[in-house]
């Protein structure tokens, strides 16, 4: 395996997944299917401080505190204070459950620069249905307070077949609240979402209507709110690059210290995952087989290897290639040129069939310890 030890890549973005614990039960969660039995193996405060220092040394500037639900960590404020002093731009990615006005004020003083709050539905009922918690009014109240405090607010609305029609209602709410950014993030089919794919994947007609609704809203509203619509890649002709290119821009550290090029990489069997308890972040970023194994194009098989577009999408997502074909070196099946592209067509057809089958409603599998145990056995 080539060692690109002198590579010029800078991990601009550090995603700190502080914990996998979460009060929500979203059936499209991107966290691993296995829920840790306890939190006792999570990195300590001291270990996170070391990770953050090492990331800064590598040139990381953006820091996302994420999870699970990062508010579960009691040392969050301490980590924000330290990260801000180190020169990070601190983003908090939260469901707002566990957030209070006092905490928002504390985080602001600590140096948080941007808070993103996720919504699971555009009204009380659907938000409760898909998130597994009755939290709609609380989320709105917290969003308002974030704005009152002068902290940039982003809202993240996770979309799927059962709430895509709510886009206009959601955008209206976001505008009324005064959000600066809205991410309309269609579910991508990893982890829990892959298990629930038949029940969540929208049709192309639904997606087109959702995107049209987004554009209508943009046309009718001249405000400053930036709206980003992220389509599910199953309807694309070419695959998406892994996190701007595997091991080029993003570095993710999991609650127990594994270092990954993206949030999902642990789904790939047969790879060795380096851990911050065994090596420095610099050593891992520059020399670990995990990072160098899929950097660039040297690892590609056909049809990617001789494809004139290989530098554009870098063969697509390695996790998706592995999950759908069993081969992490394969072309991402989303690509029309993939010999396995029929798998995507089949998934779309299965979802359509699920939607049509009125007599057989398959319940969503929610992310909780009991379902995680069922999946493990």
């Amino acid at each position, binding site marked *: 395996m080539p060692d690109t030890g002198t590579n010029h890549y800078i991990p601009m973005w550090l995603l700190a997944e502080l914990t996998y614990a979460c009060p929500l039960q979203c059936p499209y969660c991107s966290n691993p299917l296995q829920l840790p039995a306890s939190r006792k193996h999570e990195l300590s405060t001291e270990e996170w401080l070391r990770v953050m220092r090492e990331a800064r040394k590598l*040139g990381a500037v*953006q820091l996302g505190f994420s999870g699970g639900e990062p508010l579960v960590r009691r040392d969050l404020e301490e980590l924000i204070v330290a990260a801000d002093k180190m020169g990070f731009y601190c983003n908090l990615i939260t469901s707002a459950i566990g957030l209070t006005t006092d905490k928002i004020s504390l985080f602001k003083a600590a140096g948080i620069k*941007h808070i993103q709050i996720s919504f699971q539905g555009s009204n009380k009922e659907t938000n409760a249905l898909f998130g597994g918690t009755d939290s709609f009014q609380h989320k709105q109240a917290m969003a308002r307070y974030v704005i009152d405090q002068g*902290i940039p607010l982003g809202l993240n609305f996770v979309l799927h077949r059962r709430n895509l029609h709510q886009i206009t209602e959601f955008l209206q709410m976001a505008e009324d609240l005064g959000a600066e950014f809205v991410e309309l993030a269609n579910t991508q089919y990893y982890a829990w979402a892959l298990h629930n794919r038949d029940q969540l994947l929208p049709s192309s007609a639904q997606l087109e209507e959702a995107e049209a609704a987004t554009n209508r809203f943009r046309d009718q509203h001249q405000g400053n709110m930036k709206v980003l619509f992220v389509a599910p890649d199953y309807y694309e002709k070419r695959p998406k690059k892994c996190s701007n290119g595997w091991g080029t821009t993003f570095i993710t550290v999991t609650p127990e210290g594994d270092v990954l090029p993206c949030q999902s990489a642990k789904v790939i069997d047969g790879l060795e995952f380096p851990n911050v308890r065994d090596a420095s972040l610099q050593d891992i970023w520059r020399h670990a087989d995990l990072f160098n194994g899929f950097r660039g194009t040297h690892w590609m098989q056909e049809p990617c290897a001789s494809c004139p577009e290989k530098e554009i999408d870098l063969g697509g997502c390695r996790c998706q290639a592995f999950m759908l074909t069993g081969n992490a070196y394969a072309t991402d099946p989303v690509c029309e040129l993939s010999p396995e592209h029929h798998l995507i067509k089949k998934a779309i057809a299965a979802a359509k069939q699920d939607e049509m089958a009125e007599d057989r409603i398959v319940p969503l599998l929610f992310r909780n310890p009991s379902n995680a145990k069922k999946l493990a056995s």
Partner: protein
Amino acid sequence: MFDISSDQFQLNPNYRLQYEDAQECHVLLYPEGLVKLSETAVAILTRCTSPTNGIDVIAGLQRTYPDAESLPADVMEFLIDAQSQSWIVAVED
């Protein structure tokens, strides 16, 4: 929208302007993103870290770069763009 020439403005307090060794340049950091800054951009934005206005920024730069003929127009163009991207924001009284 504030008047760039005369109203008081400053660098967006929610953004960070800093030099990055790894990138060997100044960057401006904002929610979930960053932009690498040219030396000209740095010269202008470092004058906006405390409340100022367009006239003062230009006057200050003219003292440092007395031979730059198109300086006032270039700086105004930059500040208009910076305003539209919320890099600079009005200072409330």
